[in-house]
């Protein structure tokens, strides 16, 4: 057998000088540069490309474009395996590897094709009906079975090794589709100087011009195409984007597109992404996406060899492939006759033309006689014959007389549907056009116009005229004045009359409406009988129009059949609206750079590298990576590390990076007044050089955040927020200032990034600080008492801020230096503290110490707790208004049985506790109505040598000493505990003031 037996000796747009070898189902073939996988397979005589979804019927190519429902393959292998790839859209490359789908053990012999014989069991709604009972069987038996039998390709089982990108583009005019209409639009707009982007999903620009034998201005259309492309390429503000699908239209001129940068090579070249997801901001756009040809529903219309007539022309004219040796054309309109001419032109035998219309135009009659084709007027194709490929058909004429014809290709034409999907992405409803018997764009989204076939104006002349006119309008609306319009190019004559038929009622055999989902005319009838008559119900009941092709070749047939069943007109039956994406988009193209370690930005503190050198284990807290603990080789396990850090701090001195706390600089003559309004406590009384703990509420009365705020000057404060809420609090303050009280003179900016801040905690902390604070600053207990906050200097003149505040309950400070010195500060402290056994501690040790002291953090400030719940009600000032004041007083929020903060410890000191447990009374059932509160924080206290916890318990403070159970039904634990004060350690706070 010769290589590429069905490749025509000349013609077409493939590069015969460049032969590419590829593999399909393990077998090697050759094709040419310029081929698609589909055209290359066809050239090699491979017509069988897949098995159908439900019945496992043999399937071949229906189309040559994005609408392909049948020829879906798994492309590439291993980690790059890509299921459900349309062979018609795959650009052939050297060593391409593809596998057919949905067949076992092989494409030619598929065990499950017996599904076709068991057909009646698999009619519409069969999932709902058959597998309902017993319910327990669904998960274990039915679903795995169905999943193996029905379905599409397999996703890759490994992480995608390729890189993806996002990108943003701006233009005056976006042109979607580079066929005759789109190219005319881009050219006209481009000549005005406007910034133009023209996208086409194909790798070759030209649209239908590539597939048709047409003339423009008296010359081959290819000449016009070449001239136009050359001029577009010469315009500096025109960007031409082949291999780019515009898949969605969004508000205010935003378009989503995916550029297949490296899909046409086996592996992306170095530093190139596989795909690039574009967001295009366009002032105006012209949709010139063309049209999709419609099939006809008849028995056996799914056999490999039954193909759309326009697709046959594409294979012949563009790819120089003869899809069959003996052809029959089945058409309901003039456009099918072009296939007769083009097939004859390349020497194929056209056996017959079956035209459902009784009147045949004289020029078609003479064409038929010229090529020796029999003409069946007023006739239909009733059935097909063949196993894995078409062998013949049965024609039925108006009188009912049947004629059997042999053929290996049946080209079907039933008119065209405008590719109007994007016009409908913002709820635009397509409207029915009686003349062309198709839906056309209805009310258009702002800024979008539609040219040529996409608008239902199917002739080449109309495409060229529309393109030139709308390109001009778009540029002018975008602000680019234009010279006088030039007349659009002229074209050869084109007949485009049509009288579509939607289905041929046959005697037997399955007639498919939706080839991808194996939905037949019988399924639509059944849906109608069972009351699923609305288009939306029809879709969901039969699966018509679902999956990867979204019904591009089936929606209208389905609608027409339903109209027939219900005796309504098509336009009264409903329309299909489309949502993005127009064609499938890989998740990678949407994620772009943002996956794995780049999933979202990570924030690192100025001391991060130092912590890493110390062997820290890091924890994600919000966007930040923070040191969780610093294991040493001598530590037995995590707990012994944390215990060591806690004991070293309480026994001597420890340091912990707290740079992640939000820091907000507040200045202005009303800064103190502003703080009074956002915090629950008093601020005007705070002396300069002092810090104070503050709590702020949401307006609904629940606690929002806490932190210390220091007064650096009469009109200058520094607020700190929790790490997690830093952004939220800043936004809240800006709301309060700009929206609520714009007349207050307060000016705020985040200075979180400027400072590296460290907690120096423990009885020896002052001595350590003395080693690095410049001698002129007195930090003795008298000169620098608890809650002092001042600007100082360290290391011989480096500006710094020192705060005597404590989260650990120890004598402690927070020291801030400009971030460049953060790492140096840690080294300096370690050196100064060496004699005192200074120990870096992480978040876990910090958490142990704050639980020992009953200090609250995010676990307690969880958005459901009030100041009263936290036991801090007396902090609320009664002398002023502040955010949340009134709502915090609501009856339900002040009831005594609200869960209120308590401490608790296990009765059996050997037991551990678990966060998230609920409090249930002794000998009460573990039921919701017995729930008395919940556990928010637990830790092992190395000082007390048992576990301790904080939680919220109904009427908690009154129940100190009571025993209750902490029940964790998720982790199956239950511990009897004693309720106690939330302060476990140093109740009097003497260490703090040491």
């Amino acid at each position, binding site marked *: 057998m010769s290589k590429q037996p069905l490749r025509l000796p000349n013609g077409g747009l493939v590069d015969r000088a460049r032969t590419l070898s590829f593999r399909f189902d393990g077998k090697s073939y050759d094709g040419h540069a310029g081929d698609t996988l589909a055209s290359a397979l066809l050239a090699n005589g491979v017509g069988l490309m897949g098995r159908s979804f439900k019945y496992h019927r043999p399937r071949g190519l229906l189309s040559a474009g994005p609408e392909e429902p049948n020829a879906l393959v798994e492309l590439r292998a291993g980690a790059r395996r890509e299921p459900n790839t349309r062979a018609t859209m795959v650009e052939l490359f050297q060593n391409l590897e593809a596998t057919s789908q949905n067949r076992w053990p092989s494409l030619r012999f598929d065990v499950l094709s017996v599904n076709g014989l068991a057909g009646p069991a698999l009619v519409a709604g069969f999932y709902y009906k058959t597998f309902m009972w017993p319910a327990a069987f669904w998960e274990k038996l039915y679903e795995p079975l169905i999943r193996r039998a029905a379905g599409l390709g397999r996703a890759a089982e490994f992480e995608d090794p390729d890189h993806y990108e996002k990108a943003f583009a701006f233009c005056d005019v976006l042109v979607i589709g580079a066929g005759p209409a789109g190219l005319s639009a881009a050219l006209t707009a481009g000549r005005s100087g406007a910034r133009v982007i023209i996208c086409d999903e194909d790798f070759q620009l030209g649209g239908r011009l590539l597939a048709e034998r047409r003339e423009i201005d008296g010359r081959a259309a290819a000449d016009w195409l070449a001239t136009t492309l050359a001029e577009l390429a010469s315009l500096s503000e025109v960007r031409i984007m082949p291999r780019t699908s515009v898949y969605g239209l969004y508000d205010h001129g935003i378009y989503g597109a995916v550029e297949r940068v490296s899909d046409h090579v086996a592996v992306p070249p170095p530093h190139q992404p596989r795909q690039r997801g574009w*967001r295009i901001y366009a002032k105006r756009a012209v949709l010139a996406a063309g049209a999709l040809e419609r099939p006809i529903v008849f028995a056996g219309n799914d056999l490999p060899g039954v193909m759309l007539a326009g697709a046959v022309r594409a294979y012949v004219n563009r790819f120089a492939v003869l899809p069959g040796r003996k052809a029959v054309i089945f058409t309901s309109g003039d456009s099918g006759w072009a296939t007769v001419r083009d097939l004859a032109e390349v020497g194929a035998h056209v056996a017959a033309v079956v035209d459902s219309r009784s009147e045949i135009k004289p020029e078609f009659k003479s064409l038929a006689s010229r090529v020796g084709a029999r003409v069946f007027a007023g006739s239909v194709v009733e059935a097909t014959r063949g196993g894995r490929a078409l062998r013949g058909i049965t024609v039925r004429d108006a009188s009912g007389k049947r004629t059997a014809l042999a053929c290996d290709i049946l080209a079907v034409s039933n008119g065209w549907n405008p590719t109007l999907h994007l016009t409908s992405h913002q709820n635009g409803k397509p409207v029915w056009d009686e003349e062309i018997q198709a839906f056309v764009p209805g009310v258009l989204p702002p800024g979008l116009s539609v040219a040529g076939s996409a608008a239902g104006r199917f002739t080449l002349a109309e495409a060229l005229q529309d393109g030139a006119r709308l390109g001009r309008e778009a540029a002018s609306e975008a602000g680019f004045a234009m010279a006088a319009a030039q007349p659009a190019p002229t074209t050869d004559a084109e007949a485009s009359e049509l009288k579509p038929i939607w289905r041929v009622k046959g005697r037997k055999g399955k007639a498919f409406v939706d080839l991808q989902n194996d939905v037949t005319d019988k399924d639509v009838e059944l849906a109608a009988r069972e009351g699923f008559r609305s288009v939306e119900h029809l879709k969901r009941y039969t699966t018509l129009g679902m999956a990867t092709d979204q019904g591009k070749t089936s929606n209208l047939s389905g609608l027409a059949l339903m109209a027939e069943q219900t005796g309504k007109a098509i336009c009264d039956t409903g329309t299909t609206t489309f949502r993005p994406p127009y064609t499938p988009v890989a998740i990678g193209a949407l994620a772009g750079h943002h996956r794995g370690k780049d999933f979202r*930005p990570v924030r690192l503190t100025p001391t991060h590298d130092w912590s890493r050198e110390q062997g820290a284990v890091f924890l994600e807290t919000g966007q930040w990576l923070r040191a969780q603990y610093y294991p040493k080789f001598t530590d037995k396990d995590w707990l012994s590390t944390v215990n060591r850090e806690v004991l070293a701090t309480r026994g001597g001195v420890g340091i912990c990076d707290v740079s992640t706390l939000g820091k907000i600089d507040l200045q202005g003559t009303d800064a103190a007044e502003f703080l009074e309004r956002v915090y629950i406590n008093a601020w005007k009384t705070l002396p300069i050089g002092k810090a104070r703990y503050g709590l702020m509420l949401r307006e609904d009365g629940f606690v929002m955040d806490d932190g210390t705020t220091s007064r650096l000057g009469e009109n200058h404060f520094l607020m700190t927020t929790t790490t997690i809420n830093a952004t939220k609090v800043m936004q809240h303050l800006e709301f309060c200032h700009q929206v609520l009280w714009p007349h207050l003179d307060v000016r705020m900016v985040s*200075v979180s990034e400027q400072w590296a801040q460290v907690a120096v905690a423990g009885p020896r902390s002052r001595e350590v600080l003395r080693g690095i604070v410049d001698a002129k600053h007195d930090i003795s207990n008298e000169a620098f008492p608890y809650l002092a906050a001042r600007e100082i200097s360290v290391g*011989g003149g480096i500006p710094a801020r020192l705060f005597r505040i404590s989260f650990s309950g120890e004598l402690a400070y927070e020291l801030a230096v400009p971030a460049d*010195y953060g790492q140096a500060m840690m080294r300096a402290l370690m050196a100064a503290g060496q004699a005192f056994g200074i120990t870096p501690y992480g978040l876990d040790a910090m958490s142990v110490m704050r639980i020992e002291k009953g200090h609250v953090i995010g676990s307690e400030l969880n958005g459901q707790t009030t100041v009263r719940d936290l036991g801090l009600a007396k902090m609320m000032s009664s002398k002023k208004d502040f955010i949340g004041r009134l709502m915090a007083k609501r009856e339900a929020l002040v009831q005594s049985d609200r869960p209120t903060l308590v401490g608790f410890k296990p009765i059996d000191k050997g037991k551990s506790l678990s966060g998230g447990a609920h409090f249930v009374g002794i000998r009460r059932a573990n039921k919701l109505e017995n729930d008395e509160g919940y556990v928010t924080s637990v830790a092992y206290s190395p000082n007390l040598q048992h576990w301790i916890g904080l939680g919220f318990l109904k009427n908690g403070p009154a129940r100190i000493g009571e025993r209750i159970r902490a029940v964790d039904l998720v982790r199956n634990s239950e511990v009897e505990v004693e309720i106690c004060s939330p302060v476990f350690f140093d109740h009097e706070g003497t260490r703090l003031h040491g």
Partner: protein
Amino acid sequence: MDKQETSIWRPRRPWAGFAEAGQIGESREPGITAVTLEGLGFATLIAGTSSEKLERATKRLLGLDLPREPCAALSDTHGLVWSGPDQWLLLARKRTGFSDLLVSLSVDAAVSEQSHGRSALRLSGKRVRDVLAKGSMVDVHQAAFPVGTAALTSFAHIGVQFWRTQDGPDGAAFEILIARSMAGSFWSWLAASAAEFGFCVTIDQA
């Protein structure tokens, strides 16, 4: 105040550990060049009810007008970049004398120093716009973003402030500021985006 370069108190620059001098990606003639800007002085200036006094002060001290729209007013030594209503970023190419300047300006504005809180880069090269297009939701085309234009936006989910400076020998040049803590993530995005064009990295030794 950068004089204490004793053994322990050595400053660590914000790009340290991320940006290294050399070429990333394609090894041909670089399409984009980054220069890390080290040791600059930055501060936020916020005017009160009226910014006229501040304007007089900047004019007197720096010879620069306060930009009233998203623009950067730049001299050889200093710059004022619009940063929001009544708010500006003051930049100094050197930190010498910067704290004295801030003290002088604090009479007429709320001044908050940010010198250590920002990581700064200068990006230029024939393909600089193609790289920015992979992150910028702001149009940086010549027509939309002429020399002197400034913007606050985000690239790859990281907040940025950037402006276009005088063109260099290889076309448009931009200066970009990001939060110091995000330098690593920003660099990861930039390096990945610039690699296909050949990405030359220079570390400013200032």
